[in-house]
C-alpha cells in the first residue's frame, strides 16, 4: 500500500466519529462483540482472546459538537468525559457491548459510575490496577482482577476463554508492540521521514483495527515511508509528554512540527506501549500479564513511583535514548494527574540540565498560533543557546 493510502485510511478511521468500522467488523461474523476502553491502560489481550474487538475511546476530538455532554460536567472538569458522554448519548457508541474504565484519575473513575447509571444493560467495568509493585502483593491482586475480567468477558461472549486463547492473543500483541517500537525507533532515527501527525494517526488506527491488521499496517507504513524522500529540516529534537489521556487535536501536533520541532518520543495512546518487553507466551497467561505490568511497564502520572529518586527517570531516559534536546509538556486543561506530576518532572529535568516548555490544551483547542509561537521560541532557544 502506498504511503498516502495508508495515511488516508488512518485519517478516515480517525475522522469517523460514528465508529462505522465497529459495525462493519461485527457484521463480518456472527455473534461478534466489541468492548470500548478509555485511556490509559487495559489488557487488550484478554478482550481479544474473548474473540471481541477492543476499541479505544479517546473522546470526541475537535470535530464533535458537544451539546449534551456539557450538561453532565462542571466547567472545571476536563473535556474528554464530556465528549465521551456526548458520543454515548447520541448513539454513536451503541455498537459497543461493554466499556472498560481504567484507573486513570477520579474523573474517568466516576465516569464508570455514570455509565452504570446511564447504560445499565451494558457491561461496565472499572479496571483497577495495582499501585503496589510487589509481585506477591500487587501482583496477586492484579492477577485476580485479570481473572475477573476474563470471567466477565467469557460470560458476555458465551464461551470460555482458554489459556491457549490468551497465549495466542498475547503473541499478537507482542508483535504489535514490536512493530510500534520499530516505528518509534525509525522516527527517532530519521524524524524527517516520519512526521508525528502520521505516527499519531497510525497509533489511533490501532485503537480500532484488529491487532494483526494494525501490525501489518505499521510494517507497510515503515516500508512506504522508507521509500519516499522527504526534506530534512534543521529542527530541534523534542520529547512531548502529558498527552496520555485526553488527546491533542491533530493541528497541535502539526503546529509543534511547523514550529521547528521534531518529536522523537511521546506518550500518545500509552495502552499500546505500556508493556516495555514481550509478555511470555509460555506458562500462566494471566500471571504473565500481571508480572509484565508489575515489573516492566511505563512510568506515567497515573502510576505511583515508589522511590523518590526514580521520579522522572523514565522521561530522562527517553530524552537520552532519543537524543532529544528538550521536552514539551503538553497537558490537557484540568488534568490533575498530568498537572500535579509536571513540577516534579520539571525539577528532575532541571537537575539534568534538560530544557523544557509547558502549555495546556483541550481536545477541541482551535487556536494554534500561541502554541506555535511557544514551541517555536523553545526550538529557537535550544538551537541558539543550548550548550550542545
Amino acid at each position: 500500500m502506498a504511503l498516502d493510502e495508508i495515511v488516508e485510511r488512518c485519517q478516515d478511521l480517525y475522522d469517523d466519529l460514528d465508529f462505522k468500522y465497529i459495525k462493519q467488523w461485527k457484521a463480518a461474523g456472527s455473534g461478534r462483540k466489541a468492548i470500548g476502553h478509555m485511556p490509559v491502560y487495559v489488557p487488550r489481550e484478554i478482550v481479544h482472546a474473548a474473540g471481541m474487538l477492543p476499541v479505544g475511546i479517546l473522546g470526541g476530538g475537535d470535530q464533535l459538537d458537544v451539546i449534551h455532554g456539557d450538561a453532565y460536567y462542571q466547567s472545571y472538569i476536563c473535556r474528554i468525559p464530556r465528549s465521551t458522554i456526548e458520543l454515548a448519548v447520541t448513539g454513536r457508541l451503541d455498537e459497543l457491548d461493554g466499556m472498560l474504565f481504567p484507573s486513570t484519575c477520579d474523573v474517568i473513575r466516576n465516569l464508570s459510575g455514570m455509565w452504570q447509571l446511564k447504560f445499565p444493560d451494558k457491561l461496565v467495568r472499572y479496571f483497577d490496577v495495582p499501585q503496589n509493585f510487589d509481585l506477591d502483593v500487587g501482583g496477586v491482586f492484579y492477577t485476580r482482577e485479570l481473572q475477573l475480567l476474563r470471567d466477565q468477558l467469557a460470560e458476555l461472549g458465551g464461551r470460555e476463554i482458554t489459556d491457549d486463547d490468551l497465549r495466542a492473543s498475547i503473541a499478537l500483541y507482542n508483535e504489535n508492540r514490536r512493530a510500534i517500537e520499530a516505528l518509534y525507533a525509525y522516527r527517532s532515527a530519521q524524524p524527517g521521514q516520519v512526521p508525528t501527525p502520521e505516527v499519531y494517526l497510525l497509533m489511533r488506527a490501532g485503537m480500532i483495527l484488529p491487532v494483526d491488521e494494525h501490525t501489518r499496517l505499521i510494517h507497510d507504513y515503515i516500508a512506504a515511508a522508507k521509500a519516499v524522500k522527504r526534506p530534512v529540516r534543521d529542527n530541534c529534537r523534542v520529547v512531548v509528554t502529558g498527552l496520555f489521556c485526553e488527546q491533542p487535536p491533530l493541528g497541535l501536533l502539526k503546529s509543534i512540527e511547523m514550529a521547528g520541532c521534531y518529536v522523537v518520543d511521546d506518550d500518545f495512546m500509552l495502552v499500546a506501549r505500556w508493556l516495555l518487553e514481550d509478555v511470555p507466551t509460555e506458562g500462566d497467561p494471566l500471571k504473565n500479564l500481571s508480572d509484565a505490568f508489575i515489573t516492566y511497564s511505563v512510568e506515567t502520572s497515573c502510576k505511583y513511583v515508589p522511590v523518590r529518586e526514580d521520579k522522572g527517570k523514565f522521561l530522562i531516559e527517553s530524552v537520552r535514548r532519543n537524543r532529544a534536546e528538550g521536552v514539551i509538556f503538553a497537558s490537557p486543561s484540568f488534568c490533575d494527574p498530568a498537572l500535579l506530576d509536571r513540577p516534579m518532572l520539571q525539577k528532575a529535568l532541571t537537575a539534568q540540565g534538560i530544557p523544557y516548555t509547558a502549555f495546556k490544551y483541550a481536545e477541541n483547542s482551535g487556536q494554534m498560533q500561541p502554541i506555535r509561537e511557544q514551541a517555536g521560541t523553545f526550538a529557537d532557544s535550544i538551537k541558539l543557546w543550548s550548550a550542545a
Partner: protein
Amino acid sequence: MNTAGTNPGDVQKEESMLLQKAMINANYDALSTAHEDGNKISSTFVPGNLNELLMCFDFVRNLPEINALQAGMRKKSGAYIMEAERSGHSEDVCTYVKTDLGMMSKGQVGPNGKPLPTPDVLLLSYTGCFTFMKWFELVRDEYGCETAMLHVPYQADGKITDNMRQFVVMQLKEHVIPTLERVSGIKFDIDRLREYLGESAKAEDNLVWVLQSAKNKPSPIDAYFGAIYYCGPIFSAFRGSKETTAYYKALRREVEDRIEKGLGPVTPEGLLDEERIRLVVEGPPNWTHFRDFWKMFYDEGVVVVASSYTKVGGVYDFGFRHDPEHPLETLADYCLGCYTNHSLPSRVDMLCNYMDEYEADGFLVNSIKSCNSFSAGQLLMLREIEERTGKPAGFIETDLVDPRYFSPANVKNRLESYFQMIEQKRLRPEDRSAA
C-alpha cells in the same frame, strides 16, 4: 433571623466544641515540639486514616487536609495557593494540595503560630482520591521522608470483594506495618491495636446516634455545618483514643438534652428557633467563608439533616464498626468503605436513602472545583436523585480553600432561589397531598 439566644458578635459554641478545640490545640502543640520531645510524626489523609495503627507506634499525627482547611478558615489559604502557583503549580489543580505546598514554602506555620516539623513518615492511604497519590509524591519530593503507600481499591460495583480486602491486608502486613516499625523503632503490638479499635467502635456508636438524631423534627443538629465539628475527632488524629470516646459521650448528652427540650441546632448565632426546610447536602463545604456560608442557610431556617461530607472519613451509619476481633481486616473494610471510595450508583442510593429516612424537603449539591473525586458526575447524581425522590434539587459551586472561587452574592442568590423553589413546590396541591 431564625436564631435566638446570643448578642450580635458573640459566637455560640457547644460544650463539645470547646472540648474538641482543646484536643486539636493540644495535638498541634504536640506536633510543634514532637522532635524535641523525642517523638516521631506521621502525616496522612482523612479518608482511609489509619489512626489506630499509627497510635500503635506512638506517632504524633499530622493531617495535611486539616491543616489546609484550618488555613482556609483563618483566611491564609489564598496566599498559600498563590505561592504554590508562583512556584509552578497549575491553577487547575486541587487547592488543598497547593495550600499545603504553599504553607510549606512559607515556613509550615501551624494554627498555633508555631512551625510544624517535617514528618518522619507519610502514610499514603490512597483511598477514594487519585490526587492523594500525587500530593504525597510532591510532599515526599520536598521533604525526602519515607513513604508507606497503601492502595485501596475502588468499590466500583458497590461491594467489597475478598480480593480487595486481602490486597489491603497484605499491604498492611508486608509494607505499611514494617515501614512504621522501622521509622518509629517500635514493634507492632496487635493487642494494642485491638484496644484502640474497641475505643473507636464505642465512639462510632455515639457518632451514628448523633447523626441519626437529625431524623427528629425539629432536628437537634445541623448534619453538615454542625456535624463537620462532630466528625472532627473521629476523622482526624483522635479516633481510637479514650478522650475521643469521652468526647462522643459528651456530644451525645448535649444532643439528647436538646431533643428533650425540643430544640433545634446550635448555630454560631445561637439556637435555630424555627426549622423551615430540611435538606440533604452532597459535597464538601467551603472553608474560606464557612460562617458566611452557614449563615445563608440558618438565616432562612434551613437545616441540613444528612450530608455525604460527614461520611468522607468513614461511613458508619449503615452498620460498619471497627472490629477488634479482626484488626487488619477491619482496617481494610474501613478504608474501602469511605464515602468517595463508593461508586456513583452507591452514592446515589445512599443519598436517596437519606432523603427518605430523614424526610428531607430537597437535595443540594455544593460542587467543589478542587475535588474531582466528589464533583465529577454530580450533575447526573442530582438528576437521578431528583427523579427518584421527586424532591427539588439545587446546585451551587464553590471551592474548598481558594477564596477566589467563593462568590458570596452568587451563592446566596442561588440558595435563596432554591429555597423559594422548595417552598413553592410545597404549595402545589399534588405535593401537599403526597406529603
